[in-house]
């Protein structure tokens, strides 16, 4: 690593973390970049996240179930009221009938039609005017929990020293993604899913993470396994319902072997049968704690299953556990993970040598993700490959907040821009997660949005620091002369900061 020490420190913070914070971290990282990264990971529980506003999955789901019951009761009450009024109206004299009709036409909180004067704003103008009369309705439980989870995650990413552990969490969370957009169920559990199934294992064993993910209520719901029923199971024989192969396919295609990994349609269907019965307890709590994972023997397809040329004779849930362990140990899985890991941290087209080396470490250690991570940090490629990856919108916004020392009070400040930039938090377009390539994020519209966003962000800064000093603190000797000049010649502090945040040093990683 014979390079400008600032450069090595900058790489440590940028390739592996969420970028420098300018609080002396560049100097700390520069003296021993590999040690700096490993030291962060050595802190006990570094990847865990907990807090009083972050409920366990069953508790979150019970809140949702209770809310659904309450809303249904309210709907029923209104229906009944309407029916009663209609009955009363039918029996009432004509004058009264009219009053009832008018009342039922009004929506709550709206002015009566006909009372607006000629000068009243047109409807589209009204939409944009602040409406102080009524406070907004309280957020629904899934929105409230989602926001609390998002706030905790964002604050952790902005505040952490290097952010390496958080980058690992984000990588694995995207690898095993669940989308909050699926339903209220998904939205209220997606944060807990990451805390319970991903975070405990990012430096642990892959097979443990795999099991935690595939048995989590959030994943079982997202990829429809919770409803899948073995056709020859007790419940299957009685009802007309049956298999859903969505989760089974994605486990092989996206979570383990990868698409060329040597499995067939028959293997997918076999795995779907193996996984029948993997579901979660419903609102009534009949089979256990409401909202918790449970194995339903009544919906599980009985008998041995053959998969990838092997027979799995186990009864019940052990069958699925055995298959997951088998899938985690396959060489195709090691290669698939090594390639994705290297592509994320090193380059869109990492060398075959690097992928091969990482896959070897994964296999030799039986999927020890800490060993895999350390092998990447120890590689030469990590330090001599140009920082040519493009930060995703999420990575970029976290880097901006770190660079400007701005810990978000509320997730909304970041969630809105993320939606605009096409990367809504925990809501990827499909189960393959968000894209991980330069081409996907360095798009014409995407770059223009970054510019508009940065212009707005810097214009709002109350007490902007000197941009040249900030550039020094963040990048030191790693900043290019072009960026240095552009920042120094800006016409205002805000503009200088905008140029700094738009510079390749902040866009690339």
């Amino acid at each position, binding site marked *: 690593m014979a390079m400008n020490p600032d450069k090595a420190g900058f790489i440590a913070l940028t390739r592996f973390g969420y970028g420098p914070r300018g609080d002396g971290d560049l100097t700390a990282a520069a003296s021993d970049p590999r040690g700096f990264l490993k030291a962060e990971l050595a802190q006990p529980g570094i990847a865990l996240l907990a807090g009083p506003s972050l409920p366990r999955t069953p508790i979150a789901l019970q809140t949702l179930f209770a809310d659904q019951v309450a809303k249904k009761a309210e709907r029923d009450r209104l229906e009944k009221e309407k029916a009663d009024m209609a009955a009363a109206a039918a029996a009432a004299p004509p004058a009264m009938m009219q009053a009832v009709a008018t009342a039922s036409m009004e929506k709550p909180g709206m002015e009566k039609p006909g009372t607006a004067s000629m000068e009243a704003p047109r409807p589209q103008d009204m939409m944009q005017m602040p409406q102080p009369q009524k406070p907004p309705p309280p957020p629904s439980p899934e929105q409230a929990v989602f926001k609390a989870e998002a706030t905790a995650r964002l604050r952790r990413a902005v505040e952490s020293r290097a952010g390496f552990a958080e980058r690992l969490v984000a990588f694995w969370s995207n690898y095993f993604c669940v989308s909050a957009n699926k339903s209220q169920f998904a939205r209220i559990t997606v944060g807990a899913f990451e805390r319970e199934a991903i975070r405990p294992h990012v430096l642990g064993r892959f097979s443990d993470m795999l099991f935690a993910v595939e048995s989590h209520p959030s994943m079982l719901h997202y990829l429809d396994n919770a409803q899948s029923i073995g056709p020859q199971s007790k419940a299957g024989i009685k009802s007309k319902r049956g298999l859903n192969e*969505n989760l089974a*396919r994605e486990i092989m295609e996206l979570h383990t072997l990868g*698409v060329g990994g040597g499995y067939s349609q028959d293997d997918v269907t076999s795995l779907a049968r193996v996984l029948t019965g993997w579901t979660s307890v419903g609102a009534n709590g009949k089979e256990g704690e409401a909202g918790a994972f449970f194995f339903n023997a009544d919906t599980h397809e009985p008998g041995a299953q053959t998969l990838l040329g092997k027979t799995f004779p186990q009864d019940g849930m052990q069958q699925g556990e055995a298959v997951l362990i088998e899938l985690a140990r396959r060489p195709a899985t090691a290669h698939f993970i090594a390639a994705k890991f290297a592509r994320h941290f090193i380059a869109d087209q990492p060398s075959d040598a690097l992928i091969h080396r990482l896959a070897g470490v994964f296999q030799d250690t039986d999927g020890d993700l800490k060993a895999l991570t350390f092998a990447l940090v120890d590689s030469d490629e990590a330090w001599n490959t140009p920082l040519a990856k493009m930060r995703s919108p999420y990575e970029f916004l976290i880097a901006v907040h770190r660079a400007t020392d701005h810990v978000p009070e509320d997730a909304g400040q970041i969630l809105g821009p993320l939606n605009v930039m*096409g*990367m809504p938090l925990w809501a990827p377009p499909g189960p393959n997660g968000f894209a991980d390539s330069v081409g996907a994020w360095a798009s014409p519209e995407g770059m223009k949005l970054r*510019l508009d966003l*940065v212009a707005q962000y810097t214009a709002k800064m109350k007490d902007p620091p000197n941009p040249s000093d900030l550039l020094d603190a963040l990048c030191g000797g790693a900043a290019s002369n072009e960026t240095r000049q552009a920042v120094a010649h800006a016409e205002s502090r805000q503009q200088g900061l905008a*140029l700094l945040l738009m510079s390749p040093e902040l866009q690339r990683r």
Partner: protein
Amino acid sequence: MSHLHDGARGSSILHPSRRLLLTGSGALFAWAHMPKFAHAAGARDPRFVVIVLRGALDGLSAVAPIGDPDYAGLHGPIALSLAGDHAALPLDSFFALNPAMPVFARLYAAKQAAVIHAVATGYRERSHFDGQDVLESGMPKPGFVQSGWLNRALEAMPKGERVSLKGGLGVGPATPLVLRGNAPVVGWAPQTLPAAGDDLAMRVMDLYRQADPHLAKVMGEGLDIDKIAMREMGEDTKPKGGADSVAGMRQAAQGAAKLMAAPDGPRIAALAFDGWDTHANEGGATGRLAQLLSGLDGAFEEFEKALGPQWNETAIIAITEFGRTAKVNGTTGTDHGTGTVAFLAGGAIKGGHVLADWPGLRPEQLYENRDLKPTTDLRAVLKGLLAEQFGLSEAVLKDRVFPETGGVKPMRGLIS
């Protein structure tokens, strides 16, 4: 000198079409056989839109083969029918359209819309992501994601033509793969933010030109289209919904159409609508899929309205990576399948028919005993549209736009 030489070589690799023009004879030969191009230099100014439906559309619920005796049994509770409150809209004596698409039905009756049924790309596995890569890259296999067929088609058009000067339009924060590549692409998406000042934009562009030419290229393209968008749409560009919502689909279509209608706007566009992966509770004439189809229907309507007179020269095709199982699954949805439909609409389309070599739905007629068997290659349809709309030659189509597809002949008679 050697530096210059490298530069020149590099650019000819990046732009093979330029090399083709410079060598002369090939391009001249092509011109002689393209009557439409001679015309295009004058009045004709064709437009072409590709809508990618991500997640695999159930073609049997979008355009139902009501006349097939096995259909109702296979699609079970979600099968469409000509009776009842939400009766399907008959297209002919055999096929009926999902009732969520009244605009498409109207265009079809006016012979401005057509359906291709039992269609698929050459991809025969069932991974969404590989399927989409094949659909959009136009390559025979997954794993090639450097460029899309629409971009390569654009690149193959003679330089100086309006269509190639204006480049392609990618709608949404990220450009769909089908339009990525060497030919110039601009991007547009509904916008919530006030635009940055020109001075800042200029300075950032200066910095990128010196320090990061790739970022300079993409940022430049983003700033260019923004100017047209501001002129054509003013402030009316607040996002109304995501790419899987009815309002979001309409708005994306309307924005694209306004830009394409502008004299200096792009002539080719790609949009992507999400959410078609209906594994559970798919619904039939109403429900989740019907909701999505009504979004697509709304998009056709917005194109028709906002393109104005240019609608007559426009061809739109909506395509998806593959179909879904013919038989409904255990959770009232459908799993990943093979054959499906493609929707064609636009004033330039010779419409009013469903084109299908119907394979039948009996178990032995299904692909691998489970999916609608594809009998039409989607690439023949796409080649046919590119050939008739832009005069691209069969040789260009098989060598550059859809490599290794010599056996797939362009389908003729799609454009009026």
